[in-house]
């Protein structure tokens, strides 16, 4: 089974692609926006994951 990180990447790339084509007009802007948003998704998820280690169930 693929890892959680794989699913995170799939979700982030697909959602970022749709947002990029809706928000930006030129291809260069769309690519930049999609990459930034994907990186933001991944960075936030990893940071939140590490943060949650401080609060075990």
């Amino acid at each position, binding site marked *: *089974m693929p890892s959680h990180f794989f*699913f995170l990447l*799939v*979700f982030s790339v*697909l*959602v970022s*692609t*749709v947002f990029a*084509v*809706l928000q930006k007009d030129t*291809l260069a802007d769309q690519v930049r926006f999609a990459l930034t948003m994907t990186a933001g998704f991944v960075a936030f998820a990893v940071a939140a994951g590490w943060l949650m280690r401080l609060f075990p169930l």
Partner: protein
Amino acid sequence: MRPNPRSTRTSAVRTASETDRGRALVLCVAAWLVPGAGHLLQHRLGRGLTCLFVLPLMFALGLLFDGALFPLTPITQSPLTSAAALAERCVGAPWIATAVAGWGRGDVVSPTYEYGWVLMVVAGLLNTLVVLDAYDIALGRK
């Protein structure tokens, strides 16, 4: 008695505006039914083709990951489940095809079940944004 040119012009503008709004609503229905169709019909090929590819792909991946088509029975289910069921329906043709084929029963013990239904729900919600974008373009707001 001569007609008032100002009232004639106002009436013509109103008729044109109502025509635009009617055309925009037809585009919205097309955009709901086929993701990206609203943009393709307005010659926005890049956006249209991207949505036509990505949104059904998200929905299909959700099915592949054992996601479920939620039934819509607001009386007996929680509001959140009803909201998820409505969101899934917003993706249009992929939802219709899946429901007709009897797929999307979901497998709650599958490790990827949660990923699956989230992808399907988000595909529907994103298609709602795509429909609204097509509406704005049709009315000349973008």
